């Protein structure tokens, strides 16, 4: 005799969606580069240096920041980045 046994799923019952990665641009010429400060200590100093290096190459840079590394970025900040920047430099943190 075969009995059907089951457990109840404790997870969110979601399935990961596979998406094609956006291909990196061949060149940064003419693009707006977003520099995203995640709020870690001294990350602003690091991004100042990156901005200066990009400015030497006459590239367009916009700066963004989230208030604290302890929380995810507010949706409004993410939307602004998505609207304005073609590529974004962001570090992984909390």
């Amino acid at each position, binding site marked *: 005799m075969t009995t059907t046994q089951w*457990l109840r*799923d*404790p*997870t*969110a019952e979601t399935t990961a969606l596979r998406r094609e990665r956006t291909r990196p641009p061949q060149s940064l010429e003419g693009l707006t580069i977003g520099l995203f400060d995640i709020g870690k200590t001294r990350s602003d100093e690091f991004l100042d240096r990156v901005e200066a290096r990009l400015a030497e190459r006459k590239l367009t840079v916009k700066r963004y920041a989230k*208030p*604290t590394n302890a*929380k995810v970025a507010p949706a409004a900040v993410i939307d602004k980045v998505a609207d304005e920047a073609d590529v974004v430099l962001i570090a992984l*943190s*909390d």
Partner: protein
Amino acid sequence: MAEKLEARYRGGLASRKVEYGEHDDPMEVCFDRGWTDGLPVTPPTDERVLRMLKGTSRRPDEVIGRIPPNLIECTVEKVAINAVLAGCRPEYMPVLLAALEAALEPVFTLHGVLATTYFSSPILIVNGPIAKKIGMNWGLNALGQGNRANATLGRALNLIVRNVGGGRPGEADRATLGAPSKFTLCFAEDESDPGWEPLSVARGFPRGVSTVTLFQGHGVEAFVDQKSRTPEALTRSIAMSLVKIGHPKLVQSARAVLVLSPEHYAIYREGGWDRKRIERALYEATIRPGKELVAGADGVGEGVPASRADEMVPKFHDDALMVVRAGGSAGLFSAILPGWLAGRKREELQPVTKEVRA
């Protein structure tokens, strides 16, 4: 038996059925599915989940909130399933639901606590009559193993983050080393002395109301002083251990819980010191000359900027210490639960207390 009949004839659970073969071991199915924290879990059968749901008057489809990191809505039913996994009894459900609500308050920053490279996870401190009602431990070995409510409540909250929120080590959880307290760290406060103001009352709840307080931290650092006999001496002594949190030269970044044992508490009580006086005195006793703390002092790179050399520098923000009473009657030991080193913007990161409702 009632749940068996209910499961067979009424069902009513919304969560997906995960079928397994008659020769499979359900314990191993749970491991294979990635539902555990590394220790075995109780398989969530319909009967067990239905029984767990009897521990709360809230509807199974009520959404408690969105669980990070994936920000997935979590229903009371999902809480119950994870409570089964963790080994909870149904009567723990009100505490678990309150703990989850506390964890989801924005100032608790649950996403950050999960994702941090630091050692922290939610620590649960229970106050009020519910602690006794569900048989929690605030006495001997209160921070250790052996009590079902203490052990499984903390575990259940962490399993909800893992299973519903998708927060797993090596993925969104980036802890460099982690800590054993990431399995569970939950205890009750000793409220046996009517002269002591319980943590819940200090945090704005009336006496007699059950609460759970969540703190972002890890455990446990030992504090030993068997010779100080006055509140002043004991305070200076505890301060010597408190300043070591994270690093002796790191300041104003972590909160801390001091778990005061009965024998240490007796010294304060005999001296007429109450909670506020102890917490204030510890804050003041942990203020040190900046010149000892600057980067490079004593040949140690870590430290505060040189510009603070002439200041008197507090180790903590003035609201960062919480004293909680617990522990067995013998032993001039207390415990420090160090908080997450993310308090630079303290208004954005705070412990949270919620009332436990049936």
